[in-house]
């Protein structure tokens, strides 16, 4: 699975959403599933899937699908 597929899958699984809900413009709190609990579930999943430990600042800054991609690049991941 490519990194971008893994990334998308994390969203789908952690937030329990369908493919058609996931899009590039998705932001935190846009949908009820991406609330604070959903967010932490997503963070956990990304850490697992990519074998990284996210810094607190990055968890707080991770405010959208797009922003997330930017942040993960800091962890030597390419998409």
């Amino acid at each position: 699975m490519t990194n971008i597929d893994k990334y998308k899958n994390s969203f789908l699984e952690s937030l329990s959403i369908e493919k058609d809900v996931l899009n590039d413009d998705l932001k935190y709190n846009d949908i009820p599933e991406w609330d604070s609990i959903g967010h932490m579930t997503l963070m956990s999943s990304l850490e697992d899937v990519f074998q990284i430990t996210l810094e607190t600042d990055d968890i707080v800054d991770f405010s959208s699908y797009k922003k997330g991609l930017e942040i993960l690049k800091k962890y030597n991941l390419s998409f």
Partner: protein
Amino acid sequence: MEINDRNIKLMSTIGPRAAFGLGVTDLAKTNKELIVVTCDVSTSAGLDRFRKTYPDQLIDLGIAEQNMIGVAAGISRENFNVITTTFAPFQTTRCCEQIKVNLGYMKEKITMVGLASGLVLGNLGFTHCCIEDVGILRSIPNISIISPSDSLETVKAVEQALKYHQSCYIRITGGSNNPILNHTDYSFEIGKSITLKKGKDVSIISCGSILNECLEAAEELEKKNISTEVVNMHTIKPLDENKILSILENSKLLVSVEEHNIIGGLGTAIAELISSSKQKKPLLRLGVNDKYSKSGSYNYLKNFYGLSTNKIIDNILKFLND
């Protein structure tokens, strides 16, 4: 909610309060009789999702804790399963009289959950810490008292408390990135302690998230050839008397460790039990030494009160060498 590695890690990351909220939201899926009564703390209790998903099952009474207990008792009387929750001092000492009359005297069954008990909110000052809750509630009949060791145990404790025959008070300690003490699913029974580490020289009996420091201390003591047992005495009332009496029989030194005043809490409860035994062994009580300190971070306060790993080791070694 499945108890697997990922969820255990998630619950540890989000901390025991949010894990409580997650657990309750999960329970509500199959329990339409579950009602949560709270005082303007739904977000702090991780109950935001519960509030949105089950709006009729969350009764928010605003910042009015005495009313919370009375209202919860009335709802419980009509055979609903009722949980009340707010920050530990407001959940307990603020409405103590209501707890005595409604839960103790009238025996209305409520599961009370005290958020951020102990020292975790120390930087907000002692109005938002709680080192008195166990001591005070222990004196009220018909209420069990539980201090879960980690986020998973918090969820399990709530589940069991709802099924228990009388009211329970569950004091939640620790914050986000709460150390994991239970790495796999296990059976949690109110009143039945769990031995986390075996040992025969020193027995550390503790509860709540401070068990993490106890385990670390035990590992270090082992390196000094002091065989140290660590027991999770999650239920302070009723105490697992059999376990304590067996410790009294077999160990050389009992040590109680709690994020609570050493007056009135777990250490005192153990002292009460062993005082009438013919078997005499020393009990070292570690905890808050009956003083309110200046504010500070969780780690700062743990260290201040001798509850950091190093201070626990030092206190035990000092006692052994005296």
